[in-house]
């Protein structure tokens, strides 16, 4: 009974709680992986051990520079009485020292971003009726890179050379360092776009690139990862478990894909997909090659068995009633 109560409680909590998953997953020069679960920042060392490196920070994004200094923020709500938000930006130095880059401030970050190129320039999107893509150079100069009446622009990713990739509703765009804006794919959406965040229905969430500048998108509703390569044709490379959805990802030094996944109950995990697994794509496979078929057959057998047992019991009862009648 206790177990039943625990399961019921968990079920209710999972159904009631809301999620806005993070996308922060980065690697340092040694190959250690860092990711956010929106409450802590975890480190997965090369030996596979997991440790918390920054505790008590609600950060959706992470950035790590070439010196292995890790950056993130802490965002909080001041409650219904004040109805204000606050944030600070922290940096975990490669020495292990945790310092505040930006002191606690009211509101949201406006001219500071975790999408950066190798020069340390920051990029962000100002989402209004007329949206703007902005850049802040290391010297502090703020430049408007693009402006236009876009649809909803999702997360932004930046390559080392400063090429920006972002989604706008069902399209994938690239903004080159020379300011050239091009559409790489016009139809990245999947069959469903029910996932709703900030009042916008869209499916694509985290966005990242590989060494060959292929763009990867976590399709949060259809629980898959698509790749848009040079042929501009979206290709599904990975599907996720039904209760886990890929929110973001990145490639390690060996070409393995690390995906950041969020569960139905808002748990977060980082999962490694080896390059061999990626090459042997999981999208299409035969009904006979996985447990699906076996479980289906056993389920059918279970139904038939239960039906036979029920019939036997009922027949016994009928005989008993008949004997009583006689």
């Amino acid at each position, binding site marked *: 009974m206790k177990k039943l109560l625990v399961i019921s409680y968990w079920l209710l909590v999972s159904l*009631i709680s809301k*999620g806005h998953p993070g996308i922060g997953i980065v690697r340092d020069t040694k190959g250690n992986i860092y990711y956010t679960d929106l409450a802590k920042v975890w480190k997965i060392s090369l030996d596979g051990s997991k440790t918390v490196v920054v505790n008590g920070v609600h950060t959706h994004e992470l950035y790590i520079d070439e010196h292995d200094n890790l950056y993130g923020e802490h965002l909080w709500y001041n409650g219904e009485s004040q109805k204000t938000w606050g944030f600070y930006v922290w940096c975990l130095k490669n020495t292990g020292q945790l310092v505040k880059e930006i002191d606690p401030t009211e509101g949201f970050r406006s001219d500071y971003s975790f999408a950066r190129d190798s020069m340390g320039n920051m990029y962000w999107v100002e989402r209004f009726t007329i949206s703007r893509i902005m850049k802040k150079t290391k010297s502090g100069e703020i430049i408007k890179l693009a402006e236009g009446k876009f649809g909803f622009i999702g997360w932004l990713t930046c390559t080392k050379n400063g090429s920006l990739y972002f989604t706008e509703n069902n399209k994938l765009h690239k903004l080159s360092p020379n300011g050239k804006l091009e559409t790489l794919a016009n139809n990245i959406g999947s069959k469903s776009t*029910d996932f709703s965040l900030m009042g916008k229905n869209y499916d694509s969430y985290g966005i990242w690139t590989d060494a060959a500048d292929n763009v990867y998108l976590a399709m949060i509703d259809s629980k898959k990862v698509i790749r848009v390569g040079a042929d501009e044709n979206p290709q599904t490379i990975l*599907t996720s478990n*039904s209760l886990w959805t890929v929110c973001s990802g990145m490639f390690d030094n060996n070409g393995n894909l690390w995906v950041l996944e969020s569960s139905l109950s808002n748990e977060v995990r980082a999962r490694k997909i080896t390059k061999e697994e990626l090459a042997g794509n999981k999208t299409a496979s035969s009904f006979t090659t996985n*447990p699906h078929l076996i*479980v*289906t057959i056993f389920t059918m057998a279970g139904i038939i068995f239960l039906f036979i047992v029920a019939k036997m019991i009922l027949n016994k009862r009928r005989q008993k009633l008949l004997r009583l009648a006689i």
Partner: protein
Amino acid sequence: MLYILSFLLSWLSGMLVILVTAFFSYDQLSMIDIASFATLTFAGLLIIFLLMYLFTLRIVNKKIVGAKQFIYFPIIFSLLTNLPVYFLIWKDMGDLYGSSEATLFTLGFFTSGFVFGLFWAWKNKMLSQFKRV
């Protein structure tokens, strides 16, 4: 005994529909997927079985008699008695899970209710003539 059997039969039927529908419309499920669906549908059905099915069954067994049970029982259990479950599933669809999972859960619970209704209509028919005798 028949209550436990009807519960297990309903649950397995719901699971079967989830498995078959998932294969044809969504994707093949991994072992983790299947275990998750099985746990959630089992827990959900157990709760609604204890809170709603048994209570409704007691009422409809008295109110509806004869061959009509084969029509009304599946409808009542799959649609009316399952309403709280449908509400919970669709309420947070999109925020917590995609429409594909919500559809699978809904189909699973619909089938469970349908089979449960059919089972009790069948059981009543099997025993009714002898009870009359």
